[in-house]
C-alpha cells in the first residue's frame, strides 16, 4: 500500500483550521496507556522540560487531542534509538500511522567533554546512576556548547504518515507525551536518544572514576566502544559473587562417610540458617514492585501493579501455609 510520506518544517501548520471535523480514532487494544490520566504530564523536571519543548510549538487543540491519544492507548509501539524515535499510532485509518521523531545525536567528542565535567562532581555522577537527573547538568551541556533537550525547531525532526497537514500533529504529540512518562521513569532514555547508550553512559561515569582510583591506568582512555558490558556491573557482581567464583567447587569426596554426610560448618552458630529479620514480618504490599516502579511502555489491558498485587498477597499466604504443611492435620473444628 502506498504510504504518503511528508517531511515538512514544523512552521507549516494550518491543518487545524476547522475545515474538517476532528476525526475519531479507531479503538485499539494493547496500546501503551499513559499512567497519568489527568492533569499535566512530566513528573520530573526533565520530563517536564521535554513537554515544554512540545508545548512551545503552539499546537492548539492538537495538544489536547495528543494527550487524549496518549491516555487512551492509541500508541502501540515506541522504539527509542540513537537519534531517532520510531512509533506507531492508531488513528482513524485502518493502518496505524508511523511516527518518527528525530533528534540529532551529540558527537562522541561532546559526550566525552561533558563526562569530563561530571568526573569532578561525584554527586552528579551518582545521581545519574540512580536514575535521577541533576538539574545542574543542563549547565554542563551548555558549557560544552551543546543542549540535552531540543531547542525549539532546530534539532527536532518530526514526521507522521497521517493525512494531517500540520506537523507536529496530534499523533506526534501523543508519542511525545508518553515519552515524557518514560523519561520520568528512566532518564537514561534521553541520553540514548542523544546518542549515548546506557552502557556507554555508565562506562563514561564509572570508568572515569576507576581511572582516578588506579593511577597506573591514567593514560588509558575509558573504553567507550570496546566494552559492551559496563565495568561497574562487572565490578559489583564480581565482588558479590566472590565466595562463588574464588572458591573452587570441591570435588566429590571419595570417603563414603563424607560423601553422604551434611558437611559440618566451622562455626557452630551457623548451623542453623539465620532467621529472616524480625522487621520483615508484618507488611508486604509487593514492595519489590513498588521499588521497581512501573513497567516500561506498559501495554497491558489492566494496570501493571493492580494486576500483580493480588498475586503477591495470595502467593505469600500460600507459601506460609506450606510451612505448616505436613506437620499439622488440617483444621476440623468439631465445635
Amino acid at each position, binding site marked *: 500500500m502506498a504510504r504518503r510520506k511528508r517531511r515538512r518544517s514544523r512552521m507549516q501548520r494550518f491543518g487545524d483550521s476547522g475545515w474538517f471535523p476532528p476525526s475519531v480514532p479507531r479503538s485499539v487494544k494493547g496500546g501503551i496507556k499513559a499512567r497519568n490520566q489527568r492533569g499535566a504530564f512530566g513528573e520530573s523536571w526533565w520530563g517536564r522540560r521535554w513537554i515544554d519543548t512540545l508545548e512551545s510549538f503552539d499546537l492548539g487543540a492538537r495538544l489536547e487531542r495528543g494527550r487524549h491519544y496518549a491516555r487512551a492507548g492509541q500508541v502501540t509501539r515506541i522504539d527509542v534509538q540513537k537519534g531517532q524515535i520510531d512509533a506507531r499510532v492508531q488513528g482513524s485509518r485502518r493502518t496505524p500511522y508511523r511516527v518518527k521523531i528525530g533528534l540529532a545525536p551529540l558527537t562522541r567528542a561532546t559526550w566525552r567533554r561533558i563526562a569530563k565535567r561530571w568526573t569532578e562532581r561525584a554527586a552528579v555522577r551518582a545521581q545519574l546512576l540512580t536514575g535521577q537527573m541533576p538539574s545542574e547538568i543542563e549547565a554542563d551541556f551548555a558549557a560544552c556548547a551543546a543542549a540535552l533537550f531540543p531547542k525549539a525547531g532546530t534539532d527536532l525532526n518530526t514526521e507522521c504518515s497521517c493525512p494531517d497537514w500540520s506537523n507536529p500533529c496530534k499523533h506526534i504529540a501523543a508519542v511525545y507525551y508518553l515519552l515524557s512518562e518514560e523519561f520520568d521513569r528512566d532518564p537514561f532514555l534521553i541520553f540514548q536518544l542523544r546518542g549515548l547508550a546506557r552502557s556507554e553512559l555508565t562506562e563514561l561515569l564509572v570508568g572515569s572514576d576507576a581511572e582516578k582510583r588506579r593511577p597506573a591506568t591514567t593514560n588509558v582512555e575509558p573504553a567507550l566502544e570496546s566494552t559492551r558490558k559496563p565495568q561497574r556491573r562487572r565490578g559489583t557482581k564480581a565482588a558479590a559473587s566472590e565466595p562463588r567464583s574464588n572458591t573452587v567447587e570441591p570435588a566429590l569426596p571419595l570417603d563414603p562417610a563424607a560423601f553422604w*554426610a551434611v558437611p559440618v560448618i566451622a562455626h557452630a552458630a551457623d548451623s542453623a540458617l539465620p532467621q529472616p529479620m524480625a522487621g520483615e514480618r508484618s507488611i508486604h504490599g509487593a514492595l519489590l514492585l513498588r521499588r521497581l516502579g512501573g513497567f516500561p511502555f506498559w501495554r497491558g489491558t489492566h494496570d501493571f501493579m493492580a494486576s500483580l498485587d493480588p498475586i503477591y498477597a495470595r502467593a505469600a499466604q500460600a507459601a506460609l501455609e506450606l510451612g505448616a504443611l505436613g506437620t499439622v492435620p488440617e483444621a476440623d473444628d468439631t465445635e
Partner: protein
Amino acid sequence: MITILHAGVVDRELLVWAERSIDTATTSNEGPSARGRGAARIELRAHPFAATLEQIEAALAALGGSFARVKPRRRTRAQPKRARPRRAPATTVIDARDVVRSVWLPTYGGAPAPSSPLLGELPATRAKPSLAPWTVEYGSFDADAAIELLSCVADQRTLASGIVVGTDLAFWARTLRFAGDLVARQRFVPSVAGSPAALRAVWQPVLGPDDQARLTQLVAQMPPAARAWSESELTAPACKRSAPARSLVESLLGAWVDQLVRSSIADAELASAPTRVATRLNAARFHSTHDHWLHALGTADGHLELSAADASALAQQVDAWRRPLAHADAAPYRLCLRLEEPGTHDTDEDEAPRRALNLRDGRDHRAAQAAWYVRFLVQPADDPSLLVPAEEVWKTRGRKLASLRRGDADVRTFVLAALGQAATLCPQIRASLDASAPAGHALDVAGAHAFLTERSLVLEEAGFRVLLPAWWTRRGTKQRVVVRAHVPSSKLRAESQLSLRRIVSFDWQVALQGETMTLKELEQLARLKAPLVQRRGQWIEINPEEIRAAIDFWKKHKTQKIELAGLVRLALGAEAPGVPLPFEGVTAEGAVGELLARLEGHRALTAQAMPTTFCGTLRPYQARGYAWLAFLRELGLGACLADDMGLGKTVQTLALLMREREQGERRPVLLVCPTSVVQNWQHEATRFAPELSVLVHHGVGRAKGASFRREASKHGLVVSSYGLLHRDLTHFEKVDWAGVVLDEAQNIKNASTQQSHAARKLSADYRIALTGTPVENHVGDLWSIMEFLNPGWLGTQTAFRKRFLLPIQSGRDPDAADRLRRITSPFVLRRLKSDRAIIADLPDKLESQVYCTLTREQASLYRAITREAEASLRQLDGMKRKGVILATLSKLKQVCNHPAQLLGDGSALAGRSGKLARLTEMLGEVLSVGDRALVFSQFSEMGGLLKRHLQEVTGQEVLFLHGGVTRSKRDQMIRRFQDKDGPQIFLLSLKAGGTGLNLTRANHVFHFDRWWNPAVENQATDRAFRIGQTRSVQVHKFVCAGTCEEAIAEMIERKQKVADRVVSNGESWLTELSNAELRKVFELRSSALGD
C-alpha cells in the same frame, strides 16, 4: 527391610532414587566387580541394591495417595551403544526401562558403598574407594511434584517404618523451605527466561544481602551426595568435579519459587480474562505482548508464543525494569538508616555536614538540636559490625572510607543508587538528595513517629536496614498507655474458698510506665498533640484517639464482675474483649492475687500433706509436682505433667488419686494408656497405693454396659487403653468419673483422630495428661492436648492455627511463641533430668521394673509350651527333667520377647510383642530428648531382631555387639557410641557386652529379658554407670506380667534364700522346684494378656 530415599537434581528436576538393605547372601561378591576394572572406558553397571521404580513408588505411598505420580522421565537421548555390555549379565544396563540414569558413588572394588550403616557394613578392605557411575532407577519430580513431596519430607527422619529420608533428600527439603520463605516474604518478581526463540514467563526469586548469606550457608550444608548425578553418563572426568553446588541450589530455588507463585494464581486472577477461553495459546489472541506475558505467568509452563522480535523486545523491557534490583542487591554494601533522638546525634563531632544541611533547610541551629534525625550509614555486606556514616563516603579520603573498599565496587555509587531507591519510598530521603553530599535528614516529632511506626517497616521490607532506638524496639507495654484489671483485696481469705465459678469483681485501671493514672492525667495526655512524648526521661508513644477511647471506656466501666475462670484467662494473656487500649493483664490483691501468682509460677505452691494411704516417699521435686497437680485439681483446671521419662509421673499421679480418696472421693478415675503399659500401671498402683482397687478394662472378656458401670463404681481406678477409648466410649460415657488421666497423652496429639474425639467427650471433675515428650516443641500438637485438659482455652482449632501455629512456624512473629507459652505454661509442668534442681534429688541409679503385656499370639504360644512341658515333666526325672525345665524356661522367655524369636522364621516384627512395643515407645522418648541407651538381651538372635526393627522404626543406626563381633569392630563400636554424634542406641548381648566396657554416654539401660541373676545384671548395668558418668542412670527391667518372668521375679524378692542361690547358680535352681511349684511358675495368669 530398610529403604533409604535419595535425591539429586538434573535440569531443575528432582530425581528420587533409593537404596534398599543389602540381602546378605546376594551382595557384593558376585556382581559387576573386578572383571570390569582396568578398562579405560566407562562402564555402566546397575547399582546392586538400588530400588526399582515400583519400589520407590511403594515407599512414597507412605505419604499418601498423591504420590502414585512418580513420573519416570522418558530419556530422549539414545542409549549410547558402547555402554551396552557384552560380558557379564551383572553389568547389564536396564535400558529397556528408560528410567535409569547413573549416579556417581564411592565404590570399593566392584560395589558401591552403602550410604548408611543401616544398609550394611562397608567392606573391610583397606583399599581406597573410587568414584564410579552406577545406574539406578529413579522417579523424576518436576517443580510441582517436588514441592508436594518435599513438604511432606521436611524434618522427618523416616516416612514410615523402614522408609528413611536420606541426607540428600532432607537437604532438598530444606531448600524448598528457603524457597517458601522467599515467597512468603514476597521476594520475587515477574520475569522472562529462555532464548528469544522459546521465551517463557517466569517468577524469579530476588535475594537481598541477608538472603544471599543464608543461601551461602544452605549451600555449605549440601551433602556431596546431593550433587552426584551426572548430566550425561559418559562424562566421567567432569562428573568427578560434580555439578557446582550453588548453581544447583539456585536453579532449584528458581524453579520452586516460580512454581509456588504460579500455582497460587487462581484462574480469574490474571486479568486478560477474555483471552482465556482460548484453548491454545496464540499470540494473536492477546491485545499486547504484555497481556500475553501476564497470562503466561499463570499458566502451567509459562510458554510465550512470540515472534523473535517481540520476544527480544519483551526481554529487554523486563531487563530494563529489573535493572535497579540487580544493581542494589549485587552490591557488597548495605544502606542503613538510623533514627536518632533529639539531643543524641549532635554530640558527635562529625556533624558539620548535617548541620550545614539543616541550616540550608532554613532552620536555625536550635531547631536542629530539637529535631529527630535519620542518619544514612553504609554497612559492608561481609562485615555487619562496620557502620560508616554516609558523610564519610563523600570525603575524598579517610580511614573509614578505606575500610569500605571492596574490590572494584564504588561505595559512592552504591550509596547514591541505594538512596535513590529509598527516595521512592520516603519523600524526606528524596528531599535530602538535593544536597550534594546527603548524610541524613531531620524529622519533627510527627515525622519521627511516622518513621517508627510505618516508614521503617517499608524501608526494611525493601531491603534497607533500619536501626531504631532501643526504647522502641524493646518496647514493652510500659512505654504505652495500657489498661489493666485490678482485683482489690476482698473478704475471701483462703484459697480453698475459691472456685473458678465464683464471681469476683475488679476495677479497670489505666496505666502508663507502670503507674496507675487518674482521669485528670489522662485528659491532660489526650490534649497533647504530639504522638511521641518524653516523660520521666523516656519516650512514650501517645495515641490521642486511643486515650479518648480509654476515657470513654473508663467512664462506662469502672468496675466489672466476672467469673474467676474468666479472670484467670485474662490474667494469662487472653484478649480482653471491648477494651480499646492494649491490655496489660490483671493485678490482684488478697486471695485472688495469691492464686494468680501461683498459677503463673511466681510463687511457690503450698506443700501438700502426703496421703497416708500412699506407700512410698516422694522425692522433693515429685512432692512439688504432686502439690501442683493438687492445686490445679482444686481449681478444676486440667494439668499436663510432662516430666522426663523416669522422673516418676506415675507416682505423682497416684499420690493425687489417693489424696482425692482420702478427701472422700468415691467415684472412680479413668486412666487411659497404651496397651503396653496397662500392666505397669496395675503394678505401680499395687505397689504405691495398695488400697486403691484397680480394674483393668481390657481384653475380650471386659465388662460392658450396665455391668461395666457397676464394676467401675466399685473400683478406685479403671485402667484402659487408647484402642478401647473410642470403641467403648458409650460405656465410658455412662460412668460418673471423678477424673480422667491420659498417660502418654501424645496419643491424642492429632485432634482429628477418633481417640482424640473420644477423649474430649469424657466428662469428669478433673483431667490430667501425662507425657514424656517435649510437648512445647510441637506447637501443632498442643491444641489437642489442651482442648482435652481445658476445653476452649486456646480457642477453636482454626483460630489456634491462625493465631499461633502459622505465625510461629513461619518464624514471622516472635511474640506468638511467647504468648502461647504464657497462656499454656500454667497447665504444663515439665522437668528435665538435667535440671539442676532435679539432679540434686535424683539418685545415681534409678531402677524400675517395666511390666509388659503379651499379645494374643504370644499368649497362645506360651500356653502351648507350658502344656507340652507339663506333660513331659510328669514322665521325666533326673538330668532329662532338668533339661526339659531349662529348655521350657528358655522357650517361654523367647515367647515373652517375641514370637519371631521362638519361631526363628524371620517373619514381620511389628505389633506382635508387648515388650517390643513398650521398648519402641520408650526408646522413642529417649531419642526425642537426645539421650542414649544400652539395651541388653541374653539372646543374640533377639538382638538381631531388635536391631532390624529399631533401625526401621527410627531410621537411625543401631549398634549391636554380640559374641561374633571381632575385637577391632567392638572397639570401633564403643568409640562411635561414645562419640558426640554417634548412634544413640547400643544393643548388647549380655555375654558379649556384660563386662569390661565403658559406655558412659548412655543414661538409660534396658534389660529386655532377664537373667535372674542380679550380679550379672548389675555388672551389665554398670557399663553405663561408671567413672565418667555425670548423669543419673535409669535402669529399666522388662518383665512380662502374668508370666514366668513375673513369677520368678516375685520369688526372688520374697525368698532371700532363693536369691542367694540365684546369685551363685544362675537359673539352675529352678530345676530343684517340685512339679507343683513349677506349674505355678510357668502358669499364664490372666493379667498377662494385653488385648
